[in-house]
């Protein structure tokens, strides 16, 4: 039996960071060298994200585990590590990158994460058809980190898969190993 609990809670990490990187930061495009910060919601407030989440998000430019590019865009999800204890909090960072020019990137947020799946089961609502927008837009190529940070706890040991899908655009799939202590 699987149990998921979404929500922002206090983060406690005990294991090391096992994310992989392969890209030299010097060779990054300029827009990936700019860090705009990471926010999260706490009730009705927008506050600065936890340092642990910021550390995960800022690893995006150099990680080798990004979503496939489709139509000049890609979605990527990131976690601090790949191995978690049963019931340990898993915090997921969301990134949208548009790699080709000619598009607008809507960076206001933190935007709700629609269409996230764990083991092919939806754990967030589907994207609504109607969404107004107010605020700055950036021309592509560019990157947007301004999405809610989702939080899960998985109580069934074994391998579990997480991905994020918006329309036909699908993120990389994170394969997490949940182990008993």
């Amino acid at each position: 039996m699987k149990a998921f609990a979404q929500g922002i809670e206090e983060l406690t990490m005990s294991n090391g960071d096992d994310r992989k990187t392969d890209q030299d930061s010097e060779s990054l495009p300029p827009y990936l060298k700019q860090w705009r910060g990471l926010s999260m919601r706490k009730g009705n407030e927008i506050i600065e994200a936890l340092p642990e989440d910021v550390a995960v998000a800022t690893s995006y430019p150099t990680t080798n585990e990004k979503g496939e590019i489709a139509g000049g865009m890609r979605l990527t999800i990131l976690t601090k590590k790949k191995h978690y204890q049963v019931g340990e909090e898993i915090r997921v960072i969301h990134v949208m990158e548009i790699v080709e020019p000619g598009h607008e990137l809507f960076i206001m947020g933190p935007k709700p994460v629609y269409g996230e799946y764990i083991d092919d089961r939806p754990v967030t609502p589907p994207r609504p058809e109607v969404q107004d927008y107010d605020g700055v837009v950036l021309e592509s190529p560019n990157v947007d980190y301004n999405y809610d940070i989702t939080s899960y706890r998985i109580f069934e040991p074994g391998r579990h898969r997480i991905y994020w899908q918006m329309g036909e655009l699908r993120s990389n799939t994170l394969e997490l190993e949940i182990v008993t202590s």
Partner: protein
Amino acid sequence: MHTYAQKPKAPQQTTSARSTLPGRTHFGQSREVNSFLHLQRTIGNQAVQRLLQTSTGELGEASSSLASPRFGHDFSRIPVNHSQVRARTAPEEPISLRSCDMEGTEAAEGAEDLDQDSGVPVPAPSPAPPALPAPAPAPAAALNVTVPAHVRSASTPTGMPDRIPPRVDTPATVGITGWHLPMLDVTISVEGAGGGNGSVTINGANSVDLAASATVQLRGVDQTAPGNAGGLRLVARQGPTLLASSSGFSVSSIPQNFSVSFHSQISTPTMRGLRVNNHWESDSGNVADLDEAERSEQVQYGAATGIWAGVVGGNNSGYLPANSPPLVDSHGTPLARFTGSGSRIAEQTFTFNDKRTGAADIPATKSGFRLTRIAITAPFLGIMFTVDKRGAATSANGFASAAGSGSVTRTQVI
């Protein structure tokens, strides 16, 4: 013969630029006064005052022409021995009153002699000659000098550390009371410049010399590097003596005075609305100076009716570089929403980070806007959709600001 044993002071004249004070008397007119000045700057005020107070004789007449309220002293009342003054205007270095011939002069009664090296009182030689009555000194208040405790331009928002912008003047009032000749001028300067702390001019120079209260103009030149905040201080010195100092401050430019102008209408297969250019200024007058500043948008939804009822909450943009305006704001509504009438108000303000001072999440001055959407069902026409954005004093996500400038209104038929 008297032995004066006061330790000579180090030369105190600085190389700083001197301000031009209206009405200031220059001493080049009088050789005698030049002599006093030279003495005073060479061996210190106390020795000269003592000399003035204990001398007698022929200079009384010669100096009477110097009586002037500008000097704070009536020199006509001070007896000075001409020959003794001349002896000190061309000294063999180093100047030391121990070597001066003070024969025929008397120290004021009760004056204390100090050993040159130890500073301890030296017994007066005996027998002491009869003391002549010293002239009553002109009453003089104690010197009191003040500089602003906080050096910050008027454009500095509440919550920011003390700072001034580059390129433009920031006035600072220096208070001086009790100054009188033969005191040294009070030198106003900014200490701590360089090494990433930034640099500042005062009335266009590195320092100014003052003898009376004045408002000086501080102008940032080099901006403070990130990590070096608060390394500058406005100080007042008399010679090497520190008289007053401000708290630490920085030189940095910040974004302010946001405005909007029309960019384009949104008319895509799925969206309608308005795009506006979002401009801002630097308080230095040059947005290129904002290379260590970042700006962020705050949007909060307010009253909503009809087709927008229930839309609440707020958004921000994260921080973007502040040195490349304008950016484009988009205010779009999906066509699918236009099922009837309604309205919605959104409040918008801007915040900034300044890496030079370390300030974060500071509400930008004059960056408030109100965005109004109105959809009206019109017979035979469809839905008239109007978007209006204009400057308004408001707050969003807890950040308040006075009104920005500009307004843009466009109506589309859906």
